[in-house]
């Protein structure tokens, strides 16, 4: 299967200042990759770079552009735009209601998706941010500490997404192991 995302001798950082080097990655559809490392090791910087939100300091990165049908990044504390959860997921789906509904259902978020985001718990916001990212039909989904705030039902829904959505490569920054995922620990190089 052809690679979606390839890195070679990639060094990530902010404003040209290196934060961490990375092991070379070759990511194919359906791959599950965990980027591990202690606090401050650069996991978020790696994910944002792979998502195309930050330029690499050096090395090469070949992958889909950020945005719908490309690379989509989810923050550890997701930012939701003002309005309802559904409004946010519709933004991700670029107005495609059916796609938004599918994404909301996959995260089992329908019961609170029409509530104003100010009324939602951290876990509910996390599920809606994941749904919004899925609604953008990413080829590579990069999720920063997805377990933050998720309750048991949210974790179950997220685990099912990991198991079922083999059309998407999912790269996760996490301290936890994900079954079947390849683990890269920053600082091991």
């Amino acid at each position, binding site marked *: 299967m052809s690679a979606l995302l390839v890195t070679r001798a990639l060094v990530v950082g902010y404003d040209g200042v290196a934060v961490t080097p990375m092991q070379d990655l070759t990511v194919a559809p359906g791959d599950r990759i965990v980027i591990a490392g202690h606090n401050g090791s650069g996991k978020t910087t790696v994910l944002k770079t792979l998502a*195309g939100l930050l330029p690499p300091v050096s090395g090469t990165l070949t992958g889909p552009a*950020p*945005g*719908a049908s490309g690379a989509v*990044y989810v923050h550890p504390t997701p930012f939701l735009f*003002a309005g309802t959860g559904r409004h946010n997921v519709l*933004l991700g789906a*670029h107005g495609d209601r059916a796609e938004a509904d599918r994404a909301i259902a996959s995260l089992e978020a329908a019961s609170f998706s029409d509530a104003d985001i100010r009324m939602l718990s951290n876990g509910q916001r996390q599920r809606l941010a994941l749904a919004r*990212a899925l609604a*953008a039909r990413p080829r590579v989904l990069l999720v920063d500490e997805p377990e933050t705030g998720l309750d048991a039902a949210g974790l179950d829904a997220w685990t099912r997404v990991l198991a079922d959505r083999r059309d998407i490569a999912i790269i996760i920054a996490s301290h936890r192991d994900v079954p079947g995922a390849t683990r890269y620990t920053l600082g091991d190089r």
Partner: protein
Amino acid sequence: MSAFLDALRLILSGDPEVWQITAVSLFVSLAALTLATIAGLPLGYALAHARGAAGRAASAVIHTLTALPTVVVGLLLYFVLSASGPLGWMDLLYTRAAMIVGQTVLALPIVAALTLVAIQRLPAAAFETAATLGLGRGARFAVMLREGRTAIISALLLAFARVFTELGAAVMLGGNIRGETRTLTTVIALEHTKGDDARAMALGLILVVIALAVNTGVHSRWLRRPS
């Protein structure tokens, strides 16, 4: 006190000229605010994304323009619109259109400068989220304005207050022509010089009540803290 009571009597008498002047004031100021909003929101948004020395210079200029004296704007536009000026052929001087142009020039820097600040104060995660979802320019503009709406609505209120209560541009560009370009502020000044302080006070009272009503309405609808 007697002037105040005379003012109340004048308002309650339903003097048609008082209401015509009030209508002209509202028309001119709301038209100017509309034009300033249409131009100022995208200008402020663009300036918020401007980087480097040019961006800083543009930000400084737009903030400085918020302090332009109304009479200076009136004077500059008078020269531009007068018969011998570059836009004299448009024959706008001493019309409501000229007053709208003047008030738009006064309101535009306020809308643009405070929109710039509102957008710059949004969290980086808002811009990253818009980028990672692949929102187009129009969608990004819309969601960022929505995120900064509280500050932007305050900016529009401030811009309205600036133009609704200004005198310099209105009198220099409108000419205070009865039935045409008289506004609350120009007539307040006129009536005071004529010694009719009751009429001046009545018009001042109307101006304050309208400003209060607009602010109260906007605050209760859009700026109330969530309970």
